């Protein structure tokens, strides 16, 4: 069969107990599913959360086989609105199953894929379906901590999937090599596992890619492997940047880094104080970064993208040499700004509240934010009654108004 051309399909586990290195998660899931099928589970849905390639979707697929359930796969991202979700899952969840299955298992894969912009109302609808469903519902997500999923988390049993350990990945790769009759070098398997960073699917794909058309695997073969971009990779780039010996080498980090400059900028900013402990050095380096920021802005304002080149020089070479001294070991940090911004940006209710208020005052949101928000924020923080009145005027709960004013 065609789909078996891919080893991730060909070597898919057949039983829950065969899923690699997720014993705890699988046990938890099995326990929940048994109770759920008997109608005794506390939560009607399970939310499997974890990085890609750790076996979340697989768990649902294999469980369906093992428990002889018909797997109904739903795709949150292709359904525009809640009512469409309702049409498929809502109905499926009320009907009995045909063809000798004992029941159904509803899988809603990668709920992070729900776009808050395009799929308006998808999450409340999803919750309704979960509560109505006669059958177990399984959801998967890479990042369940996104604030917009909070209501969803409350109705689901959260089960965490961790990145898979290197030893387990190597063991699985070894099994596949033996089954395929491939002569392999153990070290090469270790390298593939390292590159996969706990993602078994990508490790198996890499193994297949490296051994295509031949029956051997050597360390030499693994030279082509490339990291899939993750935080770890950026750590290396930062390390290289701060250790560079000439401005030319520091500047070259951008072109060889394969990271988009704006993101790199955030990472440099977050980690600058870790690199330069001396206040004078830090000030000098930060000055360079601030200059880089000015050039980014100028390039955008004038549409003269040639000016970007100065921004790139200053944020790399400038930062690396401004403070002087050698970089010791640095434990790099993930940029808080990115986290904070993405959370604020995704908090839709806050934006909705702001839109309503702006509408009431006959203003654009932008104008509202600059002209009214600062004052409202102060007034609201000192006067509960005032907050209540605003809430009433736009028919929104007091607590939501408060949060919106704080966040916006």
């Amino acid at each position, binding site marked *: 069969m065609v789909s078996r051309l891919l080893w991730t399909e060909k070597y898919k586990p057949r039983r829950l107990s065969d899923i690699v290195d997720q014993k705890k998660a699988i046990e938890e899931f099995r326990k929940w599913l048994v109770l759920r099928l008997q109608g005794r589970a506390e939560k009607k849905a399970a939310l499997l959360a974890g990085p890609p390639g750790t076996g979340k979707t697989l768990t649902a697929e294999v469980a369906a086989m093992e428990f002889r359930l018909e797997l109904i796969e739903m795709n949150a991202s292709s359904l525009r609105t809640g009512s469409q979700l309702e049409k498929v899952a809502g109905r499926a969840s009320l009907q009995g199953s045909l063809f000798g299955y004992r029941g159904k298992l509803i899988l809603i894969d990668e709920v992070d894929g729900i776009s808050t912009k395009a799929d308006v109302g998808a999450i409340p609808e999803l919750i309704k379906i979960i509560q109505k469903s006669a059958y177990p519902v399984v959801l998967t997500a890479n990042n369940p901590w996104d604030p917009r999923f909070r209501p969803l988390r409350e109705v689901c049993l959260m089960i965490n999937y961790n990145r898979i350990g290197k030893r387990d990945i190597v063991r699985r790769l070894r099994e596949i090599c033996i089954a395929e009759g491939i002569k392999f070098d153990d070290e090469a398997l270790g390298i593939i596992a390292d590159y996969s960073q706990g993602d078994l699917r990508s490790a198996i794909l890499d193994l297949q890619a490296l051994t295509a058309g031949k029956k051997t695997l050597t360390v030499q073969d693994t030279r082509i492997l490339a990291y899939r971009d993750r935080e770890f990779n950026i750590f290396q780039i930062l390390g290289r940047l701060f250790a560079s010996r000439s401005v030319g080498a520091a500047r070259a980090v951008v072109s060889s880094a394969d990271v988009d400059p704006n993101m790199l900028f955030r990472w440099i900013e977050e980690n600058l104080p870790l690199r330069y402990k001396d206040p004078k050095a830090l000030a000098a380096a930060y000055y360079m970064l601030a200059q880089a920021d000015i050039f980014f802005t100028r390039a955008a304002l*004038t549409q003269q993208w040639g000016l970007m080149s100065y921004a790139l020089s200053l944020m790399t070479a400038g930062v690396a040499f401004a403070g002087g001294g050698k970089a010791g070991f640095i434990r790099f940090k993930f940029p808080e700004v990115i986290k904070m911004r993405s959370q604020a940006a995704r908090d839709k209710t806050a934006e909705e509240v702001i839109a309503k208020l702006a509408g009431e005052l006959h203003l654009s949101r932008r104008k509202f934010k600059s002209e009214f928000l600062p004052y409202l924020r102060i007034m609201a923080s000192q006067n509960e009654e005032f907050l209540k009145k605003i809430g009433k005027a736009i028919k929104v709960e007091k607590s939501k108004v408060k949060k919106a004013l704080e966040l916006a």
Partner: protein
Amino acid sequence: MSTEIIWAEKYRPKRLSEMINQKEIVDRLARFVQEKNLPHCLFAGPPGTGKTTAALCVARELYGEGYQKYFMELNASDERKLEVVRTKIKEFARTAPVGDVPFKIIVLDEADNITSDSQQALRRIMEKYTVTCRFILTCNYSSKIIEPIQSRCTVFRFRPFSDNDVRTYLMRIIEGERLDITEEAINAIVYLSEGDLRRAANILQTVATVEGKITEDDVYKITGRVKPKEIHEMILLALKGDFLSAREKLRELMFKYGLSGVDIIRQIHREIYNIRELPEEKKIQLIDKIGEFDFRLVEGANEDIQLSALLAYITLFGRGGG
């Protein structure tokens, strides 16, 4: 239009074995062809490093000359609406390919221009059509591709070409077109193309319009650039404190060669890295200042004055000031 008119297209490698360098990537892709199998791929790398060419070569070798039937190219930045992409893919994937290759190939160019929300949807599409289609995504920055998609792809990183690689490619065109060109002119094109083969071919085709043997001067004149050597000399003169000679050099470049101030100042930026006489921290301060003057030019300030002021500023660094 016959694509043969454009050299970058005419000399685009047709087979994997014709590709310049990227040896490890090519070897691996050749094996996929041999096995008649292909995982989903992510080709990451700067412009002009052979990503699209590699995809085209794979398709041609898998399906032969009639490959277009089984091969679809979509550009993510042109077709921003994922709905359009989805419909096209659905249409394309509906029929199974004839012959012994059991899947079709869809190339999504510039996939890093797709928003992450849409990438989530794309991920679903990839999953859905895996049986009949394989996806090759190309991007400049793989960090802009969401993790779930990266996890499903074999990642190939294309590196910028070395000067030698660019030269090999240029020689192929020069022989093919029987061009008369000096060694220095070839070096100049190599310098200006910065590891981008497409740009190299375009520059060569542009300068080939001159009569007679193509010289280094032709290359710089036609592309509106200065010989790096001349910029280098000008900077050294200023550092030595000889402002008058430095300014004379500047005026020669601007008025005699008719170069724009912005072009000159950007080359000064590039050349600063190669000035051994300057300590590293000084280079940084200088670059900051060069950017400042560049911005003034962009805003419409007088080129002659601004560039002269920059040169005067550079002289300060020569005396250990700055």
